[in-house]
């Protein structure tokens, strides 16, 4: 086993995270070289993370080593098994915590404490440990025992409500947006705590609530209420394909030629409007009142209809290219295939790295949307199969001999 490299090579993470909301956080650290050690339950074959055996699959094989989402969220990590129902396992965990900089989890609030490792215990083992818990509602507050997954987080924090068209049900988010942002916030919390520890030597517990994190992403709408008394729940709202903050018009997703094809057009200002009206070249767009944004907002439904008439028979990429040439923000609504395999920009960024997974073979995964000039990320190694690094972690890191390892295996501790 070679020593790690990368800007976070000095950071070891004792990792209890799962799904995406937690696993995505430690994945980020691992991509920059942190030694992330995933701890999984051998009795349930790691199925606490429901993604371990869930679709998508690369082929007809099924089981805990074939979950495509799990593999995506756990690249570059190490994995061990540990049956925390046993006393010997808890002793081993204490030894692992002692050599870890960070303990990360996204259990329901209180689960790690019930396993015998609340923050007070973690801190007693390792005084400068950074413990970041990530749960739906946090460890404090009346809802702390409530259960969530992405769609519930989004519904409760305001993100589902604010996504939709007037006089329609909420469209919400068609995926667990807050699993991504929850993971990002958890990673940010860990990184900030590491910076603080570098300066002061102190560790700490950070209690992250995914619903707090989500509610922090709706600032202008909240202030419109707390400052102006204007609720988002009012006639005509939500209207998220139009733009209220900032005000832009026309601003929408317009139909294009083909089945379920759409193109986004956003007029940021009067200059963009002139360019758009010039490209469409329709007499109905020449009215003086449209020269200013107020006039365009007042008439945005009429304007949308004229723009849609122009876009509907045209190819979405052609519309976008033509408007971009005129200086107007426009882009085709891309399918997964179009943006992943058809867009030279994602390829040029190296956004879909291919990893080697012990059971699944070579699989492409999400990359990171940043590049660091000197210490960039690296994603090459697939997610660990169950217990893949037991020998390294318990043998090399904790110094257990082969006999001890064999007896732990025989006793069902690993």
């Amino acid at each position, binding site marked *: 086993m070679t020593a790690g490299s990368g800007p976070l090579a000095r950071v070891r993470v004792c990792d209890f995270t799962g799904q995406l909301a937690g696993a995505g956080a430690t994945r980020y650290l691992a991509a920059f070289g942190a030694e992330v050690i995933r701890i999984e339950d051998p009795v349930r074959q790691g199925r606490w993370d429901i993604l371990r055996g869930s679709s998508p699959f690369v082929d007809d094989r099924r089981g805990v080593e074939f979950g495509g989402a799990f593999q995506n969220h756990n690249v570059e990590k190490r994995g061990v098994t540990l049956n925390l129902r046993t006393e010997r396992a808890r002793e081993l965990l204490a030894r692992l915590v002692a050599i870890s900089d960070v303990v990360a989890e996204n259990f329901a609030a209180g689960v790690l404490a019930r396993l015998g490792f609340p923050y007070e215990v973690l801190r007693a083992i390792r005084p400068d440990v950074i413990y970041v818990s990530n749960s739906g509602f946090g460890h404090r507050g009346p809802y702390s025992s409530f259960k969530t997954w992405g769609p519930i987080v989004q519904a409760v924090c305001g993100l589902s409500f604010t996504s939709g068209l007037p006089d329609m049900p909420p469209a919400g988010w068609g*995926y667990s947006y807050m699993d991504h*942002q929850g993971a990002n916030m958890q990673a940010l919390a860990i990184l900030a705590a590491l910076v603080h520890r570098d300066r002061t030597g102190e560790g700490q517990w950070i*209690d992250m609530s995914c619903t707090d994190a989500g509610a922090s992403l709706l*600032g202008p709408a909240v202030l419109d209420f707390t400052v102006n008394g204007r609720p988002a729940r009012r006639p005509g709202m939500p209207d998220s394909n139009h733009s209220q*903050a900032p005000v832009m018009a026309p601003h929408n997703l317009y139909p294009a030629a083909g089945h379920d094809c759409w193109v*986004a057009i956003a007029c940021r200002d009067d200059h963009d409007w002139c360019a758009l009206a010039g490209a469409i070249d329709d007499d109905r767009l020449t009215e003086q009142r449209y020269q200013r944004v107020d006039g365009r907002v007042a008439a945005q439904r009429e304007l949308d209809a004229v723009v849609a008439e122009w876009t509907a028979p045209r190819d979405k990429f052609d519309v976008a290219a033509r408007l971009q040439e005129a200086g107007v923000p426009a882009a085709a609504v891309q399918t997964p295939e179009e943006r992943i395999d058809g867009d030279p*920009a994602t390829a040029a960024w190296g*956004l*879909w790295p291919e990893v080697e997974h012990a059971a699944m073979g070579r699989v492409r995964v999400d990359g990171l949307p940043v590049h660091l000039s000197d210490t960039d990320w690296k994603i090459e190694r697939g997610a660990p199969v169950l217990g893949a690094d037991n020998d390294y972690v318990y043998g090399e890191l904790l110094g257990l001999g082969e006999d001890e390892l064999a007896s732990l295996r025989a006793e069902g501790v690993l």
Partner: protein
Amino acid sequence: MTGIDGAAMDGEGAGPLVGLRVVELASEWTAYAGKLLADLGAETVLVEPPGGHHTRSYAPFSDDEPGPDRSLWFWHYNTSKFGVTVDPGSDTGRARLDALFDRADIVLHGDRDLDVDGLRRARPAAIVVSVTPFGRTGPRAEEHATDLTLLAAGGPVWSCGYDDHSIAPVRGGGNQALHIGGVHAAMATLVAVLHRNITGAGQHVDVSLYAAANVSTEAATYEWLVARATVQRQTCRHAGVFPTASSLAPDVRGRLLHTGVPPRTVKEFEALLGWLHDLDLADEFPETFFLEMGRDRGGVHLSELGEDVEAREIFGAGRDALVFIASRMLDHDFFVEGQKRGLAVGIIAAPEDVIQDRHFVERGFPTPVEHEDIGRTFLYPGAPFAAGRTPWRIARRAPHVGEHDRLFP
């Protein structure tokens, strides 16, 4: 030890990034990353052109009156920052900018034309962070973009909208393209800081908002990468390769709530039956029998629903029961009561509901920010996470145009 504004720099009340100096060249793309760093304690100086940056013209406005110091968009994204104005077209302006760069640990900017190499050559320890729609280089780097076009091209829009695909897909509200890229910018900045803490070396961090949207679509991306399958949008639930049943239901006054994933375990069937009985609705609900079957057969597993007709009936009855109960209650009561019974159901809260909700209030999420200039205090959205030693805080309201010019001459 105190910072330049007199705030504590150590111990209680100091953020984790205290001591780091950020210079942010005002830009729509960097505003959120700058806020994250500033609220976490970094001394963040926002550099605007004379007269102020154009994001000061972004609606909504305090009391609905436009004005450079009245934009609520600007207020929100520029908390805890100091504000200075610099005219980069003048010699004195350029000299002042150089002096600001000289004292900065981190330079945050959204301008593709900024001479990053030149800036770094003179300051090898500086961390220069570029946040732009498509990154500094690449085939689409020149494109004009907004939140809408980034989410449209980058994947989120494909997955959001309604079951009826004759209706346009939907951009999720709240400028989330800026948030996804912004939090990534802050994360990568701290990775560079941690590297610099050991080596003393700065570096350049290039952030693409478009790439950030692309890697934030959950199953849409990996269904394609792993199985070459394409998800299809559905009303207020996960876009899927295969359709799923609705998760919305009206409460007693018609307000929609979220029924979550219907019961699958014995415990959940028991909870649901108990709820029906407690409401005296078990006899009135026509499918109580199926719920009892679900309990008695040891629950249902999602993987059974394809082939097992009985499992499908039971699963459907669970959802019907939630819809039935919802129709008799207010949405918030349904949410709290269901959750207390162990069912992961939700309320579809508007932002104004959240900021007043007792859970968020008890966690201290609504954060009062004093606007001493107008003699008022307003509640702002608070901390994304609650740190034991290094509290997140809003150190001050967003700056007026050039408010801190004297502090940073």
